């Protein structure tokens, strides 16, 4: 019988597959307990950072790269039995949320002394690691093709010119912290009422709002759009990769800081503390600056390649408390008014 033979062959194959399964399932667990880092900065930078940690301290560290919200979700979901030790590079807004949910462990790293006091949590839950500023990115190839030698926009108001209709791409605050930083930045620059008016005027030129905060810079780098509202490091990264992009910081740019914290009831708190102390030191921060193009809070670390020095920028007076307290209201209002 043809089908009988086929069945036996089939069963033989299943047997082989079971053996294969046993082989695949054979555990390959690491022997020493590494420090577990939930990192928000770039994947490649994190990998190099871990390598450097192992070389410098002899300890072991491993990481996963997540978006800020994913870290928050994960830490909350793992509350009963945390799996991570350290949160690294995440925005203050999310640190504050985690702190208010009692998901962080207070840890006053000795490195707090190395950075200005406004960049550390006075309650001792997080310590600033990097400074990120905003601006807009322009695709220079497209600019030359479409606007020739005309001067590029220099101020936020310049972006309201109708000739940029559908050429601007910006992130959506409903899902991207980057965009919320931008919006409240406009409020801090103009006052809330005028800020809303500015956003509405800008909306006329925005083709659509991307869910991801990094996407606009990437789309402008590829030439899909002319102008992106973005964090400087996302644009600088594209520039250093060789894309035809110019980064412009108008007067009154918003900013944020990345920060490090220890997760409450972390499985390896001592290792976590050791990692934070190490990672906020000069060499690791220089590595992050060089690979990730974020600004440093330490005075002994050089600027990212192509970045504008801080004293040449006009930063808005960012009020963290106000931004945190009004978030729900602002997001709701934004969601009602902007539909792209």
């Amino acid at each position, binding site marked *: 019988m043809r089908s009988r033979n086929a069945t036996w062959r089939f069963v033989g194959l299943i047997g082989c597959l079971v053996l294969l399964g046993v082989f695949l399932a054979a555990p390959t667990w690491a022997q020493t307990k590494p420090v577990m880092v939930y990192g928000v900065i770039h994947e490649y930078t994190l990998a190099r950072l871990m390598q450097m940690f192992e070389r410098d301290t002899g300890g072991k560290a491993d990481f996963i*790269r997540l978006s800020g*919200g994913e870290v928050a979700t994960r830490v909350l979901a793992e509350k009963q039995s945390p799996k991570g030790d350290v949160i690294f590079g995440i925005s203050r807004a999310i640190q504050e949320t985690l702190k208010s949910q009692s998901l962080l462990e207070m840890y006053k790293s000795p490195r707090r002394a190395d950075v200005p006091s406004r960049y550390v949590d006075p309650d001792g839950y997080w310590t600033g690691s990097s400074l990120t500023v905003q601006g807009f990115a322009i695709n220079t190839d497209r600019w030359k093709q479409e606007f020739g030698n005309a001067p590029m926009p220099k101020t936020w108001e310049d972006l309201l010119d109708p000739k940029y209709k559908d050429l601007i791409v910006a992130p959506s605050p409903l899902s991207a912290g980057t965009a919320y930083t931008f919006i409240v930045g406009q409020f801090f620059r103009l006052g809330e009422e005028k800020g809303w008016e500015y956003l509405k005027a800008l909306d006329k030129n925005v083709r659509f709002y991307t869910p*991801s905060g990094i996407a606009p810079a990437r789309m402008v780098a590829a*030439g899909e759009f002319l102008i992106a509202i973005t964090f400087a490091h996302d644009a600088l*990264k594209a520039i250093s990769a060789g894309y035809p992009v110019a980064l412009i910081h108008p007067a009154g740019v918003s900013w944020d800081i990345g920060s490090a914290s220890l997760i409450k009831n972390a499985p390896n708190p001592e290792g976590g503390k050791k990692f934070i102390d190490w990672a906020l030191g000069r060499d690791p921060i220089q590595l992050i600056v060089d690979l990730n193009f974020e600004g440093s809070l330490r005075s002994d670390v050089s600027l990212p390649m192509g970045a504008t020095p801080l004293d040449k920028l006009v930063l808005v007076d960012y009020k963290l408390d106000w931004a945190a307290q009004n978030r729900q209201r602002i997001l709701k209002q934004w969601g009602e008014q902007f539909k792209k």
Partner: protein
Amino acid sequence: MPKATAARERSGASLVRRLTVDPLGLGAAAFVVGLLAVFVLFPVVRVLAQPGVPEWVRLLTDPRWLRLGGNTLMIGALSTVSAVMLGFLFAYATSRPDVPLRNLFKLIAILPLVSPPFVGGLAFILLFGRRGVITYSLLGLRGDIYGWHGLWMVQTFAFFPIAYLTLAGVLRRINPTLEYAAQDLGAHGFRLFRTVTLPLATPGLTSAALLVGIYALSDFGNPMLVGGPFKVLATETYTQVTGWGDLGMASALSAALLLLSLVLFAAQRYWVEGRSYATVTGKGSFADPLPTPTPLRWGLFIACSLVALILLAIYAVVFVGAFARIWGVNWHPTLENFEYTVFRGQQLWNSVRFAGLAALGGSVFAVLAAFLIQRKRFPGRAAADFAAILPAALPGTLIGVGYILAFNTPPLALTGTGTVIVAAMLFRTIPVGYRAAIAGLAQIAPNIEEGAADLGARPLRTLWDVTLPLIRSAFTSALVFTFIRSMNTLSAVVFLISPGNVVASASILALAEHGEWGQASAMAASLMSTVFLVLLGFRLLTGGRMRLFEL
């Protein structure tokens, strides 16, 4: 005949009696029901219990969500129709032995499945975007793909392989003698197709539509990349978590998506219920299929060629991008992009390991569940059927979050291990293998099994000698499909990866998100090559006897 069997069972057999007659069947049923309850229903319940009153109120009162719901329904319907049509075209063309290059088409049709999420959409933008190589540089078009029309195109290409896979098996099993008979009775050409081929393919078509529809509803990657101002619920679910970590709102939105999927499920149920599509009736046929009329043959060939060319272009982009210094800017060939792939080589191995385990476990489980649910009567059968198809309706994000909530604490403290990733991969893809097996079984008249039973074969023997050979193709489809999908799955596992258990698809997303397209392409190309190598190895190992994806 099936009605009589059912009636006999309903009236006569008690649970106790069936237990003594068929203890193995009932034990297996308990096993299937138990696993589905723990790994499908429990995480879903955990997620649905997550949102508080404010989130539900926001969901029901904010006009934004209603608008998004409308968008979701519209694009879901459009993409489902077009993807199923395209899938049918490919399945029909490749089922005709006289269509040129049919084996090549079979291979190309599965390309979108082999590609990691994001990468296909990204390549699509690079080709057809505002500055796309084809639309802008080659054709000088000033079009704009961002919106529902671009999304429709991308989803059609992304999901038609799912329809193709479901339909290919179904069409191949249609007995050619039926077509001969119809022809003898005077039906030719389109009439033959409409009155014989199409009705026989109906269970496949509805299965395919259900799967594609649910995939389209819960797709978040493509709307994120090419939807532009056209937003859908699934993207919102994902970004509520990734952006602000709003688990409550994300869960509430998942519930809304789940509701839409359930409606689809019920509709498909209603449509297929009570009809018989059995064509394998024990009266074997050695007849060759009818020759395809020449105009139809070439029409099929040209249509498939066009689609195949677009797909080849999309995946060529990934490989070219992997070796180009900077996509679109500097085309010098380089190997630099592969440095990171090698540096984090463990991730690729993790992907193969986890996906392999999920495929082995998943295909056995899917076929077993399909067989039990299709052929046996046991308590919880309808619920098990529902649970086996449910994962397709769940956004990956919901599965990921649900698994964290469900398995972070004892008794099943699995988070942080590879096991939880394997489980997520396995149960997320269960519906495909399960539906394929059900569709296969629906075509096998129970009278073959009953015949075997009448000849004295015990249930296990019947399963072994009669049913298994007939659903082998469903098994191998499930095996290969689960492996490929799991190699590329992202939205669910992104919440479950832990240091040491990172998979390649998560790295690809992280790299692509940061604009490291070269490195992302390199890793994606490595991942796709790995999938093809494993498939090739599998095919060689089985001496080409095992059907992989109808190849």
